[in-house]
């Protein structure tokens, strides 16, 4: 651990890596709460994969890959909605069709560009190679996402909990849905360097699910989820640096370990506590 802290003081790349992954932990944790509460975990996976062709396109055109990523991310979510609303195809099937299509075309575009190292980094992340410019764009995305969530907290809460009531009093629930999809795309782009496209869904749903087991209040869940995301990033990066492991995978596994801890020991939902309660109840009954 001391080695890691020393290295942190000494190496600029490690500082950038840590800062970036902490920011990613926060924004993924926050957006992830809404993703899981709206039952859109699969959608999160889909959108993050659908970003790939946009990123490839942006590289080809030499523009910032945020634009391309947002474009294909939102197009894919529109396509998913279009198919499931206009046919008997169910939403999960529609998601499966659209995101694999987008992902596959992204892979082909990137192989045409003949830079396989880039593909590997986009898919799995390489936080130790984060450049300063990428760190700043993650920061800007992060601030934008957090400001949006803060400003529209009320609307996000009511439309996630009871979308019928939200629509009944005049909230544009469909706009809110696509707005959230856009935020999700931004978060995915911001996480590209840290955990990569394939694993970003873990950062979205695992910390949020962990927090979900620990509280009965949405705002507490948001803070907890962000905090758990940050812890996962720090632990993950530490193991990644110390044992030379893939950074994205290490961060995701750290998040998974935290989830398992909550799953077993959560005061209200945890396995242990439930078992204790059951035993006590039986004892009372058998007296």
């Amino acid at each position, binding site marked *: 651990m001391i080695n890691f802290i020393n290295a942190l003081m000494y190496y600029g790349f490690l500082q950038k890596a840590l800062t970036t992954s902490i920011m990613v932990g926060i924004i993924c944790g926050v957006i992830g709460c809404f993703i899981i509460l709206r039952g859109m975990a699969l959608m999160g996976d889909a959108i993050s994969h659908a970003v790939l062709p946009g990123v490839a396109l942006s590289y080809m055109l030499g523009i910032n890959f945020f634009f391309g990523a947002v474009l294909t991310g939102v197009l894919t979510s529109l396509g998913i909605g279009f198919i499931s609303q206009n046919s008997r195809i169910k939403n999960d099937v529609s998601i499966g069709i659209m995101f694999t299509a987008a992902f596959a075309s992204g892979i082909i575009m990137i192989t045409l560009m003949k830079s396989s190292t880039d593909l590997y980094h986009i898919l799995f992340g390489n936080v130790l190679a984060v450049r300063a410019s990428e760190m700043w764009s993650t920061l800007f995305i992060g601030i934008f996402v957090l400001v949006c969530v803060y400003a529209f907290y009320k609307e996000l809460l009511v439309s996630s909990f009871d979308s019928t*009531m939200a*629509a009944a009093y005049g909230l544009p629930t469909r706009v809110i849905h696509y707005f959230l999809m856009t935020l999700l795309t931004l978060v995915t782009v911001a996480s590209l360097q840290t955990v990569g496209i394939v694993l970003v869904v873990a950062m979205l749903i695992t910390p949020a699910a962990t927090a979900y087991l620990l*509280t009965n*209040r949405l705002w507490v869940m948001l803070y907890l989820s962000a905090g758990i995301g940050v812890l996962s990033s720090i632990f993950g990066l530490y193991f990644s640096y110390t044992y030379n492991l893939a950074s994205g995978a290490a961060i995701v596994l750290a998040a998974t370990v935290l989830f398992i801890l909550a799953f077993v020991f959560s005061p209200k939902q945890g396995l242990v506590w439930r078992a204790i309660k059951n035993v006590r109840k039986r004892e009372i009954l058998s007296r």
Partner: protein
Amino acid sequence: MKTAIAVKELYVSYYGSEALKNVSFTVEEGKLVGIIGPNGAGKSTLLKALLNLIQKEKGEVAILGKTIKEMRTKVAYVPQRSSIDWDFPITVFDTVLLGTYPNLGVFKRPKKVDKAFAYECLEKVGMTEFYNRQIGELSGGQQQRVFLARALAQKPEIYLLDEPFVGVDVTSEETIISILKQLRDIGKTVVVVHHDLSKATDYFNELILLNKELIDFGVVEKVIRPEVLDKAYNNQFSSLTNLEVKA
């Protein structure tokens, strides 16, 4: 007496199959109205069409003389219990507080006044002792009371309730119906989707009897006659309905 809800030649369909056809009726202010009819008669659909939550194919709906879009904040909707995610991380009090949102506008947070009012509404339904509970920890009747409190917090002129008495204990049902009657007595309009015919006479002033078409509409005594009900229920329950009406 002003007209609260006016529906004219309303048609709704889902993917080509008709859910409602040619429904017309008017509800005056200060009435407690039940919507009854067999399963799949389009009762919930009618409520949703009133709220413009589903597309109408044809027809007009006027709320207090205006379109629903102008009157959205004047109408509160209490959904079916089955449509709510009861594991959602939200407490009883925060659920009721949602009722103050429509009148707040974007970017504004509920203030002390709003919170005090939400608490008052929770008091009305007798649920203050549970205010800090997660909503899934309540019984069905308690959950329904919380959602009624949320509707009260919206300060609407019109209340639309979808099956509020399904899976609800007797005490809660009594609390809910007495609040609805109080609302009616101070001039609010209350429309309730309901399927239990036995208590219809006690509960409602008027009934809308529906089976895709409007079978009958009017004061309870006029609608709740076996020969009228038979038309909606296609004779299949005629013996049962007879029993229930007498009871």
